[in-house]
């Protein structure tokens, strides 16, 4: 430690204005750095004169002010200071700031700073430099804020290293949407679209999210609501803990998707106490969890407080009865038909109509039956037909059963009422009303006076609501029939809903036949409801259709929706078979210019994506980090069978 600088005093020769000097006392770097021993309590940054901005001190500064020089620096106090430095430290920092702010022309320097050898600004800067370095050198830590409650332990095993890298890559590619990147998609797989599958696969295998990637996972879930359930399940308790600290991730705390803070549904006392004291979101989550485990218990829980709940809460709670709905719920729902709130009544009616054995369903059946009947009079002329006599009024009883009296703009009252009656009536009423016909035969019957569309649409809604596969099948008709001429509905959205009622295998078969007959241009919504990975016949039908479209000379982007689906949904095992399509054939004469090259590119991307998916799944199947075998994990994860793949739209 040198003291030569520190002990130097003001030079006698220094001239006023053009000072070359730096050897002014207290201004030499070493002098100030060592001069840390002064009582810092004089450094008051508050108590400022009016009109000057209140300086906001950082926490270390606060700390340094509070400290009575706890940190006695190694700098030897006896060596350090010069007279000027001592004088400077007698002046408060606020005074210095005030003089600096107003200017030395307007404010005279405090006593002890002004000297004949220096002009005022230099003296002020000397003192301020001294003060600044002294303050910085003498910083002490701030008092600690309350410590956070640590996140609960996540018992899941860590990801295998390769899978971890893959996740980082998928998350990094998240914001690089191809559309934003300027149109053409090129040959590289679209990583964004693979994230949902990756998350689902990781959750099936019950892996823990790598902590360092949690912010990116939560950001991804924030940007895409469709990712949320899987992303939040993956993020787990630590993700939820983290989300509690960042308002951007508040969505994670809403709703029951987390399920982490909820008590075990078997722990009656805990369930009861959370139900009575919890926040709304916690209670919805609790009800959903209990309902999934024991539907009757959930109903009983809801019944304990039902009459005291607010109307909008009742509506949400009622909605969570949708899962696990059974005839046992009927008495409760029937009572809810007299609820004060119209929305609650409507929802209760809708739920009851999904129970074909309910009293409401029977009442609706009676009403609907008076409107729709079989007309046998024309048997000789051209066969039997269905006649429709729409209701003439919507009486109070109908309204109590959930029929909405006021149609939306553009629809006639009577057809609006008819539609509601038919969609709420159990489908099993119709065969007997229609002379013992099967659903197929019923939808094939002609309908009088242009009511066909209205009637079939209502039946479609009923089939979906009652999850009736026979009627769905009948209303879908043969897949090879032209969409516009088929029974039921020509809306693809409605057809997709009907398809979702069919068993997985039948669904895929129907769509495969549809694609084989009509190509891909209208198949998008139908394909979206098929189970992933696509069954072999379905995959083959789609690939063949793409091949045909290429040969027909159109551009691949006309099929970009289906291509994207195929990338995500085809069985990764198909990659090798598709490899042959990635070559660029010679341009055909009638083809659109350049189409062949684009197709080859599109198929390259398809194959690349399939390979990537196969690699992704293989990585997740690798044994987790061999360094930390955790027998507890093995025991916990083993008994759970792998759930079926979720269809991914």
């Amino acid at each position, binding site marked *: *430690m040198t003291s*030569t*600088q520190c002990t130097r005093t003001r030079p006698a020769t220094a001239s006023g204005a053009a*000072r070359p000097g*730096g*050897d002014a006392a207290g201004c*030499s*770097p*070493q002098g*100030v750095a*060592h001069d840390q021993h002064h009582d810092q309590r004089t450094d008051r940054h508050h108590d400022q004169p009016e009109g000057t901005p209140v*300086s*906001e001190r*950082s*926490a*270390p500064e606060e700390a340094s002010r509070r400290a009575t020089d706890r940190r006695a*620096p190694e*700098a030897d106090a006896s060596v350090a200071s010069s007279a000027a430095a001592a004088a400077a430290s007698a002046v408060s920092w606020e005074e210095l700031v005030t003089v*600096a*702010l107003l*200017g*030395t022309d307007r404010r005279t320097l405090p006593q002890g700073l002004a000297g004949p050898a220096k002009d*005022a*600004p*230099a003296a*002020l*800067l000397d003192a*301020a430099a001294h003060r600044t*370095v002294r303050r*910085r*050198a003498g*910083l002490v*830590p*701030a*008092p*600690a*804020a*309350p*410590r*956070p*409650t640590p996140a609960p332990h996540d018992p899941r095993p860590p990801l295998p290293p*390769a899978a971890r*890298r893959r996740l*980082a*890559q998928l998350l*990094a*590619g998240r914001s690089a949407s191809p559309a934003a*990147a300027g149109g053409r998609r*090129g*040959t*590289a797989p679209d990583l964004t679209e693979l994230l949902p599958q990756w998350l689902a696969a990781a959750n099936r295998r019950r892996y823990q999210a790598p*902590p360092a990637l*949690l912010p990116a996972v939560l950001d991804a879930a924030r940007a895409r609501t469709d990712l949320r359930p899987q992303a939040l399940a993956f993020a787990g308790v*630590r993700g939820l*803990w983290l989300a509690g*600290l960042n308002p951007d991730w508040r969505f994670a705390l809403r709703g029951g998707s987390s399920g982490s803070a909820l008590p075990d549904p078997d722990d009656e006392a805990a369930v009861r106490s959370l139900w009575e004291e919890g926040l709304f979101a916690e209670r919805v989550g609790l009800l959903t969890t209990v309902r999934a485990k024991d539907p009757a218990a959930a109903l009983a829980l809801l019944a304990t407080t039902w009459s005291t709940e607010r109307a909008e809460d009742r509506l949400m709670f009622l909605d969570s009865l949708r899962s696990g709905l059974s005839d046992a719920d009927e008495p409760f729902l029937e009572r809810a038909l007299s609820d004060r709130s119209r929305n609650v009544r409507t929802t209760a009616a809708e739920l009851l109509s999904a129970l074909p054995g309910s009293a409401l369903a029977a009442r609706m059946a009676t009403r609907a039956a008076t409107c729709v009947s079989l007309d046998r009079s024309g048997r000789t002329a051209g066969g039997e037909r269905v006649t429709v006599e729409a209701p003439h009024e919507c009486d109070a009883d109908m309204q109590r059963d959930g029929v909405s009296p006021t149609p939306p703009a553009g629809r006639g009252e009577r057809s609006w009422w008819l539609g509601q009656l038919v969609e709420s009536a159990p489908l099993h009423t119709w065969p007997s009303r229609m002379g013992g016909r099967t659903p197929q035969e019923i939808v094939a019957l002609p309908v009088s006076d242009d009511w066909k569309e209205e009637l079939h649409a209502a039946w479609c809604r009923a089939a979906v609501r009652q999850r009736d596969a026979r009627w769905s099948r009948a209303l879908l008709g043969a897949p090879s029939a032209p969409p516009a001429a088929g029974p039921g509905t020509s809306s693809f959205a409605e057809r997709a809903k009907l398809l979702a009622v069919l068993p997985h295998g039948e669904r895929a078969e129907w769509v495969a036949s549809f694609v084989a007959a009509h190509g891909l241009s209208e198949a998008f919504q139908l394909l979206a409801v098929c189970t992933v990975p696509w069954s072999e016949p379905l995959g083959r039908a789609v690939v063949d259709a793409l091949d045909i479209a290429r040969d027909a000379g159109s551009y691949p982007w006309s099929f970009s929706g289906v291509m994207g689906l195929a990338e995500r949904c085809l069985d990764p095992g198909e990659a090798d078979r598709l490899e042959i399509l990635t070559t660029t054939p010679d341009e055909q004469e009638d083809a659109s210019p350049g189409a062949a090259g684009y197709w080859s590119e599109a198929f390259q*991307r398809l194959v*690349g994506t399939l390979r*990537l998916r196969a*690699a992704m799944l293989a990585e997740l199947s690798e044994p987790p980090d061999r360094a930390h075998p955790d027998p507890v994990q093995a025991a916990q994860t083993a008994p759970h069978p792998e759930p079926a793949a979720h269809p991914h739209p």
Partner: protein
Amino acid sequence: MAARSVFPMNQQGVRWTAEQVLALAPDAASRKTGSRLGTAGPWSEAGSSGSGAVWGLCRGSGRTPYRTVVDTAGGSPAYKCSCPSRKFPCKHALGLLLLWAADEPVVKDGEAPDWAEEWLAARRAKAAAAAGDTAHPDPKTPDPQAAKRRAEQRAERITLGAAELEQRLSDLLRGGLAAAEPSGYGLWEETARRMVDAQAPGLAARVRELGAVPASGPGWPARLLEECALLHLLDAAWGARERLPEPLAATVRGRVGLTTSAGGPPVRDRWLVLSQYDTPDGKLVTRRVWLYGEESGRTALFLSFGAVGRAPQTSLPMGLTLDAELTFHPNRIRAEIGHQFAAPAPIGSPPPGVDTTEALHAYGDALRDDPWLDSWPVTLHRVIPAPSGAAAWQLIDADAPFALPVEPTALSRPGLWKLAAVSAGAPVTVFGECGHRGFTPLTAWADGSTETVPLTEA
């Protein structure tokens, strides 16, 4: 420009991680496009050799595929690609490295094809020649007399510049900081240009920063006074440099902007790569790499520079240790990397750390050698990151009621959330820069873990 480090060619078995590869990307767009090419799809005839070369053909929009080859041997990878992109490295090189990093089967082990080998051989010959150069000092040292004369001329210019700056500061304080506020930025910008003319880039940079202070929120007059005072101190110290003891005089020369060069005996150690991050600085990108010597206990800063749109050449593998020689600049913190003796190896443990009180002591001590220091590299051991009031965070000692505030500009960076996620309320080891504005976390290790989590990536 930082000297290119020379590494031995035998880098077998050291495969980079995807993060390391992406750190090479010159900008965010390249990172994205590069990631998309990091799949087997467009690649053919790809391979890698035991000597660290990676090559492949990437199908693009044209008829002929691009030929991409990367030499990963050494700390500064080199790239060659037949694509017309002006980005460096281009997306093809990044994609290829990602493939290689992920150990994709499409990248086969083997010998480089002729088109790649030609370039590799030329490059390595050049590197070997350069290594020879550094071993034997440049024979054509310029005339020492002329060099001395130039240095004197420059010092004179700086002295004039410092005097001019001193005059500006004096005028400013005569009229008052409040009066100067409206003219603010333009005034400082002009003064900064004058300092550039005076060949004092260090003064210029500090002056430019003054311009931003009045817009930095409440308390700006105090901060502006502090910075003006330190600038005044630097002016004064420059004038007195001949009377200052040598290490301090060297610091002053460095702060004013005279280039320093590394010298003295090289320090061989196992250097742990603690952190690497880039900051834009006008037309340059400055890459800072913090290293920690396991045996010497020294912390070193390795700087490299690149033009905007081009990542600085040198990328060191974060979380690995280099058995290498470092030579230090006179400020004893900045260093250049010399000979590397072995391939980078995984770390055994994070560097030993201190508590928050000792961290501030370390900063205070460092101010003795350099009172202009804004912060000092410190590893904190067993601290818990926690929010402290609205929009403020602290790193709390696990075993004492003290804490360091997180530096305000670090609050808006994604790294803070990574740190919180790694900690989850439990003590962690954090490396970062500890200064008068608070602590800037750069790297974290969960308790008991050797996994290095960078907090500086976008």
